[in-house]
């Protein structure tokens, strides 16, 4: 039986651009799938196809057991969507926004009202409930947007870059909310450009690039595919770089790379923490003073780099995002 979210061979073209080039997904009920990829990879288009906003040119999509193309309205009753932009009416109060969405989910006015009170409480917005959302902070708006997506406690949720443009504190808060939500058994598809976010929230990760899913698996599986651990050492004095490199060569499983200007040496290893201790001892014996030493496991950034040949871009998309780094695309160094 297919999962709560299932897609097979989704294709969508816009003019000459093949935004989706055969996307396959299968998200088991009650799990979180992180859809990871740079801008323009097809994440948002995938979400739009699965949430009935966009009709794919071909392919099959089933959400909560319902065929998306055949019964879009039935799907809409079973999903919640929280978008990239906090899509709430800025002149309406938080309470009015939630009541309106409830009524449009076909709740009775009274029911919608009661549900709005519950959600405002749950998302710590009670104090601001009767202020127009124009006066809300970015984080508050995101929370309200999320609350609006949860009005009918849908079994399947879609979140398109829920934390883009939020400061770290607000991001952390929103993560907590999402974790709570998922622990209640909701199936969630989450798109993100933040590798850390996928690592943090998702059970499974699908890496998307150029309209295709290029890798699937748990965070650990993807990391294991990329390769093992490495040790990074920063020596205190430039003169010690050569000696330190000799030490590391003895322990390493590959070439040691040296960054002269930061006095940083990196070497791939196997053996984990125990090896780290040995390296520290050896460096100490040789009288090499170190500023920093660490055992690094591959990050999803490394995964992405090795899969696509470029790092995940983080740049602001639309007006909801701010402060994203522009132009971080780098060519892979082989």
């Amino acid at each position, binding site marked *: 039986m297919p999962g709560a979210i299932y897609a097979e061979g989704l294709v969508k073209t816009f003019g000459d651009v093949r935004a989706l080039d055969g996307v396959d997904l299968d998200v088991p009920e009650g799990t979180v799938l992180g859809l990871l990829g740079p801008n323009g990879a097809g994440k948002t288009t995938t979400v*739009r196809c699965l949430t009935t*906003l966009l009709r794919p040119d071909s392919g099959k999509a089933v959400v909560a057991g319902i065929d998306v193309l055949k019964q879009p309205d039935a799907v809409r009753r079973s999903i919640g969507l929280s978008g990239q932009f906090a899509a709430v009416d800025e*002149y*309406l109060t938080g309470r*009015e926004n939630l009541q309106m969405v409830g*009524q449009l989910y076909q709740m009775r006015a009274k029911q919608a009202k009661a549900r709005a009170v519950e959600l405002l409480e749950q998302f710590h917005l009670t104090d601001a409930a009767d202020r127009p959302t124009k006066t809300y902070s970015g984080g508050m708006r995101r929370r309200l947007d999320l609350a609006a997506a949860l009005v*009918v406690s849908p*079994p399947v949720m879609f979140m398109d870059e829920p934390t883009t443009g939020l400061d770290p504190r607000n991001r952390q808060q929103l993560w907590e909310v999402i974790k709570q939500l998922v622990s209640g058994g909701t199936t969630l598809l989450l798109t993100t450009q933040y590798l850390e976010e996928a690592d943090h929230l998702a059970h499974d990760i699908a890496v998307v690039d150029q309209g295709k899913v290029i890798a699937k698996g748990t965070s650990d599986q993807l990391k294991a595919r990329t390769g093992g651990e490495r040790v990074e050492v920063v020596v205190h004095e430039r003169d010690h770089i050569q000696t330190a490199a000799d030490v590391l060569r003895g322990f390493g499983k590959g070439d040691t790379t040296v960054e002269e200007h930061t006095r940083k040496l990196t070497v791939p290893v196997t053996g984990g923490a125990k090896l780290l201790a040995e390296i520290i001892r050896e460096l100490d014996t040789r009288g090499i003073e170190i500023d920093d030493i660490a055992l690094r496991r591959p990050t999803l950034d490394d995964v992405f780099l090795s899969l696509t040949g470029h790092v995940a871009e983080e740049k602001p998309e639309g007006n909801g995002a701010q402060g994203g780094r522009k132009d971080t695309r780098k060519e892979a160094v082989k």
Partner: protein
Amino acid sequence: MSAVSDAVRVAPPANAVTQSFRDSMVVAKRNLIRMSRIPEMIIYGLIQPIMFVVLFTYVFGGSMQIGGSTSAVDYKNFLMAGIFAQTVTFATASSGAGIADDMHKGLIDRFRSLPMARGAVLTGRTLADSVQTALTLVVLAVVALIVGWRVGTDGDTNVGKVLAAFGLLLLLGYAFTWIGALIGMSVRTPEAATSSGLIWLFPVTFISNAFVDTGHMTPWLRHIAEWNPFSATVQACRVLFGNPGQSHSGAWPMQHSVWASLIYSVLIIAIFRTLAVRKYRSATA
């Protein structure tokens, strides 16, 4: 599948028409709340027509020839039907801008992901805009009375006819908001919706009988003016108000202006509502 059974807190609607009406009212209420929180929009919406009433009355008043007359009083009584009609058509721009703004901010996406009637977002918007149009008309009528506009100066009228004229004006305004809705769904930004919502309104409202006697136009222009849907409502208002300057042209819309006004408005609604809702269904922000 258990995921589905959990979801059935929300039953599918029993009746599509009831749902459509209910959803439209929810959206209309939302737009009316918005308007009440942005009173400056209503105020600016009033300034232009009031300015037109005052400027046309006092600047053009003495020199415009209406029928055989160039009296300022006749022009004043002639003018108001035109100004009223022009004012209701300007609602097009605000509904277009409002809908483009909703697209831009992602609200249309949210609405489209909800199990609501497909036409309700636009219907709610156009209905709310009509409430604003009605409000504008009331204020404008008071201003017109202050500067000396009177009904029944050149024909029979009564309260029923005057109300019927305002009814036709509201219907015309409502029809034009659907043109605005289509524009709003078609352009990318609210700014573009405002300007593209207004540009074509100038020829439509000026190549008409609104401000001048079409009898003085060159024949080809006169034909356009007399068949202009907008002119039909203006003529109908003059007839119903009993105001001067009614066209005696043989063109059908001028002869049967009340019917022509009704038919044109209903046609515009039917065509543009269909196009706008179709656009809504496939909207991609």
